[in-house]
């Protein structure tokens, strides 16, 4: 047990040391989400208001952008495993008296910490679009970001455990992970799209992470949203088999995903090296 714990903190410590020393990395992972925010939020705000009746489209999309920042940063944290393998440092870690589970947990914790910091920094945009950034909101959102980023870091490490090159990692991320991110309801309300897209999105576990963040941000606004345009499909809160998911249920889905990912990553690691 001591070896698991030491493995976790030693590996996480180094991830954070690297993060602090490479500030350019911090900026790069903001670029894409902020760009999407401007294009979709500001650009389409007037046109596609009907997609999200009762909520400004820009308010609707903002929690999705926060989620996207966290999702992308977490998944890409797996790249450090591939990087370490390419540059040999992984060997130094693997011959140390640390447990493999600890090493995977350390990578996940390190990646999740970075992702949570970046996601939290996106919160400063909230007041600009008219969402009050109350202490209660922050206290509710940040733990959620931690859970989501741990799960997605697990996914990133799982992919990385099989990859020998950075190019390989990028290919897999673009083929599997980007579709997962884009079909998770960041840009559209899952309940209001064609059925085939609904099915894909509702099978995608990331959808529930995005929905949880959105419910916390817009929870107080969601009452008028329900049934605003006659039919009663809510814009917020995913409907599965007629049941509308609560925040807690959403969190459960993403937490289960996280446990599965981290177990799978540990297993994959043990098998490889």
């Amino acid at each position, binding site marked *: 047990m001591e070896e698991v714990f030491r493995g976790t903190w030693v590996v996480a410590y*180094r991830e954070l*040391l690297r993060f602090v020393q490479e500030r350019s990395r911090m900026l790069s992972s903001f670029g894409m989400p902020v760009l999407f925010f401007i294009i979709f939020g500001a650009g389409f705000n007037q046109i596609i208001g009907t997609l999200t009746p009762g909520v400004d489209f820009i308010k609707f999309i903002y929690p999705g952008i926060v989620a996207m920042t966290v999702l992308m940063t977490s998944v890409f944290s797996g790249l450090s495993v591939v990087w370490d393998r390419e*540059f*040999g440092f*992984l060997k*130094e870690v693997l011959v*140390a*008296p640390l*447990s493999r589970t600890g090493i995977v947990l350390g990578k996940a914790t390190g990646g999740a910490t970075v992702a949570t910091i970046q996601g939290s920094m996106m919160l400063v945009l909230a007041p600009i679009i008219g969402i009050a950034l109350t202490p209660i909101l922050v206290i509710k959102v940040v733990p959620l970001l931690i859970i989501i980023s741990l799960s997605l870091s697990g996914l990133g490490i799982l992919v990385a455990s099989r990859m020998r090159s950075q190019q390989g990692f990028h290919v897999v991320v673009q083929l599997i992970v980007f579709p997962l991110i884009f079909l998770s309801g960041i840009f559209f309300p899952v309940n209001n799209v064609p059925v085939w897209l609904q099915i894909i999105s509702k099978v995608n576990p990331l959808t529930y992470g995005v929905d949880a963040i959105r419910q916390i941000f817009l929870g107080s606004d969601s009452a008028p949203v329900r049934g605003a345009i006659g039919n009663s499909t809510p814009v917020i809160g995913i409907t599965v088999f007629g049941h509308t998911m609560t925040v807690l249920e959403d969190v459960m889905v993403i937490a289960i995903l996280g446990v599965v990912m981290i177990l799978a990553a540990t297993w994959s690691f043990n098998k490889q*090296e």
Partner: protein
Amino acid sequence: MNIIEAENLSKRFGQLVAVVQVSLSVTEGEIFGFLGPNGAGKTTTINILCTLLRPTSGTALVNGYDIIRQRNQVRSSIGLVFQDPTLDEYLTGEQNLRFHAYAYNVPQSVRERRIGELLELVGLSDRRKSKVRTYSGGMKRRLELARGLLHHPRVLFLDEPTLGLDPQTRRHIWEYIHTLRQQERLTIFLTTHYMDEAENCDRIAIIDYGRIVALATPDNHKDSLGGDLVTLKAEDNEAAVLELKERYNLSPEIQNGVVSFCVPQGEKFLPDFVRGFRSHLLSISVRRPTLDDVFLRLTGRAIREQEADSMGQMRAMIRSKR
């Protein structure tokens, strides 16, 4: 006491059998060398002993711990310097060492002092706060050596510790290794394909195609050839060989237009031989055999021929460019 005890270690990768029935024991405080061409199974054997690879069959004890069932105890007992660098180049030298100290649970009370001492030993004190990226190849290797010693290992494994380094740095590294052995009572297990480097070892196992073909002290290896090595060129080498066989009862060999054979006490043998030999001699010389000669005799090939193989060259080039 034997600090390493290996019994019938074998490793196969699919069809390829990399290590075949390797058994050896290394006593405490010894410098034990693994000599062989690239691809002979040296690194695979080291990887098995340091728990990075599971053997297909056989077992080994390192510092009394089983390499399969007690992996973490083995890992705590050993220090490693690999062929390829395993440093985090974006951290400073000091940060790399500190990471290692945390990972190996070096007590906080001795940690900083130990880091300082080792950086002093390998001559990197003034560069401790520089990023490893800015180090030269030799400095990186020295830092790895310091790191491998940080947690007071009982055995230090060095896989080609001086590959790709200039002769001056190589000599320095060997000075450190000898100092360390005296200061820390350390056992050193190393692989090399440099003959001169192998001379530093107390005992050498010569390995070829995954098998240990001979294991002895450097001097005993050379004595196994039966004395000093005489090489000669005659106008007619074939005739010279025939004469050597018939009149002198020797077993000469021709390679690259040179006839060679071994005799005890070559210097004393030579004057009478030159006077009495009937074939017309063009040149003749006598010398102590080197380990290369031993290798040649045991395997029919010179290690140096192997060195020129393209893969090894490519890898060395890629390494030096990083």
